[in-house]
């Protein structure tokens, strides 16, 4: 039986691009601690989220945008939690050594919060990959990824999620 793989590629493309964009925006929001916006976004039901994107025709770019809006709060929350878990002594030491805030983000905060952010990205990737409800509501049955693709996506997402969230090798 010939297998049509195109929905899987479509899902992977949408999920990959949406995760990348929402990762950048989520890290920025988490860094700046814009929590009110994030909390509002998190409280939105998917149906309302869908109403933002009632465009015809429903292209994969619009699906990506929907994925980004859907994923940002999760990433922003995790990034903020990751940044807050860092001992402020490290950032203070970096400041007194003459490092700018931007350099502290890249060299100190992001590497130290990497595990939490990576785990959140993996979960978000899996969620977008297997998202059925939003696609179904927006585009109806024909465009929604078939359930088989979703299950494969779930498996991929689970593997990535586990890989990113391995137990610590040694205590700090």
């Amino acid at each position, binding site marked *: 039986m010939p297998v049509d793989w195109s929905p899987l590629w479509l899902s992977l493309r949408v999920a990959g691009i949406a995760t990348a964009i929402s990762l950048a925006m989520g890290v920025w929001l988490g860094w700046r601690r814009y929590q009110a916006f994030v909390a509002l976004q998190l409280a939105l039901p998917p149906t309302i989220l869908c109403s933002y994107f009632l465009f015809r025709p429903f292209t994969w770019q619009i699906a990506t945008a929907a994925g980004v809006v859907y994923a940002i709060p999760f990433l922003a929350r995790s990034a903020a939690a990751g940044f807050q878990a860092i001992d402020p*002594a490290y950032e*203070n*030491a970096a400041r007194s050594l003459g490092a700018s805030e931007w350099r502290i983000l890249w060299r*100190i905060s992001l590497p130290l919060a990497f595990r939490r952010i990576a785990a959140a990205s993996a979960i978000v990737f899996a969620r977008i990959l297997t998202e059925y409800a939003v696609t179904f509501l927006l585009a109806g049955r024909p465009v929604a990824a078939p359930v088989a693709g979703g299950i494969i996506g779930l498996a991929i997402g689970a593997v990535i999620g586990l890989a990113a969230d391995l137990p610590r090798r040694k205590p*700090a």
Partner: protein
Amino acid sequence: MTHFRLTRKEPAFSLDVDFPLPAGMTAVYGAAGSGKSLLLKLAAGLVPPHAGRILFDDAILYDAAARVEVPACRRAFGYLPPGDSLFPHLTLRENLRFAADQFPRLDRHRRVTEALDRWQLAPHSELYPNQLAAGQRLQGAIARMLIAEPKLLLLDHAGITESLLLQIRAITAAPMLFATGDLDLCCSNASHMLVLDAGRIAQSGTPREIVGHPASVEVARATGIPNVYQGSIAALDPGRNTSLIQFEHFAVTAPYLPGRFRGDQIWVAIRPRDLRVHGSASGANCIGTRLVRVSMRAEFARLEFEDAVFADLTLEEYAAAKDNKEWHVEFPPGALQIL
């Protein structure tokens, strides 16, 4: 000229200090919770003050009234935090390189290697901080702080010792402000000392002056004098150059107190090692009392008597006196310090 005036009010604590900073080493001495760490953080620019002014080498780094605030990364102050501060995801060498980033590339490499050699950390340069011993982590953090060539050092680490301070002094001549709760370290290394009590500067001066002449009850207690008593002047005799001070449970004769009146309430301190302990009543200023407990120290024995009187005896004196049937404590008039 360097001058700090800093105020910060927190719900449970408020800090309000105003002091000039001389060249050389200045110790910030105080008990836990007296505001030493907060003072150093405010000076470093890591916590915003609510009011005040920082003048460093005649440049204004902070002025609340004029809304000037140079951020911590431009102050070029070296700050050593209280705990571990080496970045845990970088090796020791990468940690040092992070601090040397402002220098050109070749120069950077030379400086890092030199610092590693100087602190004898070269064999451990590829290890991560959690693989190093605590002493090596502290040395690494100091080496990293010094690589950036700070103009003022703010040290807030309990592991600072006399030899580390001497090593730092050999590398840089920058003025230094170090927080400590160790009076010996103040006397051995600091040229100037600030005694902090509940967020205020209780006394400042050279360590000798402060230890020799505490200005207030707080300073006397902070510098480890347990014998601090409140009393009133019962008699003054300028002719014989004497006075009588009545405390709650006993009275002592002291030298004449110029500028005081009969009935004045005063605080008196006396060092435990200046008290003399006798087995029988002998002479003036001798008070019969009861021994409560003896605390053995490495170099001496501290005897606690009734009414919170503490006396230090050398181990030989204690060995000779320990079978006394009764105890008499003598307050030598010359050793009484009027606060």
